[in-house]
């Protein structure tokens, strides 16, 4: 790892290093039903971050004694492909991947209607294909879209975005340099229709006022992403729109 000087994150004209305004999202792309075997699947891209998610289930849980008598269990794995990062990542699960798998599972459990499927398990596997900041949220959203693709009942789709602090300025949907050199990184995910937060973390430091401002900024971003997700689901049936 080369030793570099911390670069300027906000340039003279107030724009960020990738040309975005502080409150601008990266381009988003969603593809549904990309795998044949999985019950549901999706590829979710935000800028250069690209994640594929697959869902299997609900299906009977074996061994039986691990099954929950009144609801479905979730088995969730967040994993980064070795070729997803600048330096090759060892495929063995890292502590970070283990923590994120748990955090993502808890977020998904807040939305999946697990009571409908006692004694079953729902498997959710996410594979990061390209990592360019925001992988946990893109993975969570890919999983949410894959669950919708599988027809598994949920309270709401999940939309999330990270707010960072770069050169003192609050920025929406942080990129890699902002992730590496910024003063804060706060990922937030919500069930937008219900106004419920399902994921919240902070890496870095901010004042309580900055936190509230960041939440405002996050909500704006989430609202935009949510609409894109809805459109992606609706568009599958748009070709056959009735007169």
């Amino acid at each position: 790892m080369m030793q570099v000087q911390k670069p300027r994150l906000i340039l003279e004209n107030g724009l960020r290093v990738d040309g975005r305004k502080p409150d601008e999202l990266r381009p988003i792309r969603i593809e549904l039903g990309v795998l044949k075997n999985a019950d549901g699947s999706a590829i979710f891209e935000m800028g250069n971050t690209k994640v594929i998610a697959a869902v299997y289930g609900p299906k009977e849980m074996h061994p039986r004694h691990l099954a929950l008598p009144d609801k479905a269990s979730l088995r969730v794995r967040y994993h980064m492909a070795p070729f997803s990062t600048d330096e090759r990542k060892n495929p063995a699960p890292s502590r970070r991947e283990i923590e994120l798998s748990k955090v993502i599972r808890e977020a998904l459990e807040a939305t999946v209607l697990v009571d409908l499927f006692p004694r079953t398990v729902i498997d959710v596997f996410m594979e990061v294909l390209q990592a360019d900041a925001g992988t946990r949220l893109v993975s969570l959203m890919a999983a949410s879209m894959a669950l919708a693709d599988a027809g598994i009942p949920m309270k709401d789709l999940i939309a999330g975005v990270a707010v960072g602090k770069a050169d003192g300025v609050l920025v929406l949907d942080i990129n890699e340099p902002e992730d590496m050199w910024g003063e804060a990184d706060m990922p937030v995910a919500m069930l937008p229709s219900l106004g419920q937060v399902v994921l919240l973390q902070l890496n870095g430091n901010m004042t309580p006022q900055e936190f509230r401002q960041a939440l405002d900024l996050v909500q704006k971003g989430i609202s935009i992403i949510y609409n894109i997700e809805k459109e992606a689901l609706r568009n599958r049936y748009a070709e056959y729109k009735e007169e």
Partner: protein
Amino acid sequence: MSVTPPNENIVPLIKKDSILASLERGVRIDGRKLGEYRPISITLGYIKKAEGSALVKIGDTMVLAGVKLEEGEPFEDMPNQGNLIVNVELLPLAYETFEPGPPDENAIEIARVVDRSLRDSKAVDLSRLVIIPGKKVWNVWVDVYVFDYGGNVLDVCTLASVAALYNTRLPKVEVEGENVKIIKEEKTDITPIVQPVVTVTVGKIGKYLIVDPNITEESILDAKVSFSYTREGRIVGMQKGVNGSLTLQEIDAMENLARTASQILFDELKKYINL
């Protein structure tokens, strides 16, 4: 320790009858001839962060191979060679019963067969990977990730590895005595691979030999043999699979069938790579 696997894909008996009835008429249940491959698609450069990559589909099987280059040291007894490491993962995304975890015996077998095809054919020229002889070399990591298991994964993994290696360019290196400066952003025209290699799998169902078994056919195979070839038709790898047995005549017939079918794969590669 290797344990007999449970039956993970129950093929309905009526379907088995259909398959055999079709084979008797010289055709397979998906309409293919016995020596035909399913539709193939190759997308080079699918992953931006990889030094080389290829997304390859044959029928419903989907594989993504990514090449990452790393500075390394040569083995003491081979100072003028870089290192090639092939890793295959049968991801839990690919099939309902695949579990997360380190590569199992199936993934390891595929990785080793692909590695041998690339090495024994000298398709990968390890001498090209030297930066400072005896001191610094390139480690070429080929990570082959199977995302959708639709049968005959080995052929697809070899194809994806070869395509990804052709998509790879070694970065510019400035050497001054003992000092090496690697300029990652500038690429040379040098690829780690100098000739293409393909693997063709032939399966046996009853007395019929079929190329590129799909997942249903694969579940009822009596035996299979995978052959690796160079463009000139040289055999650079063989692996028998499944727990049935074969006569010498059957193997002879399979090799002929495989060699003919190998042209289909080379033709496909030619569409995307300047061979």
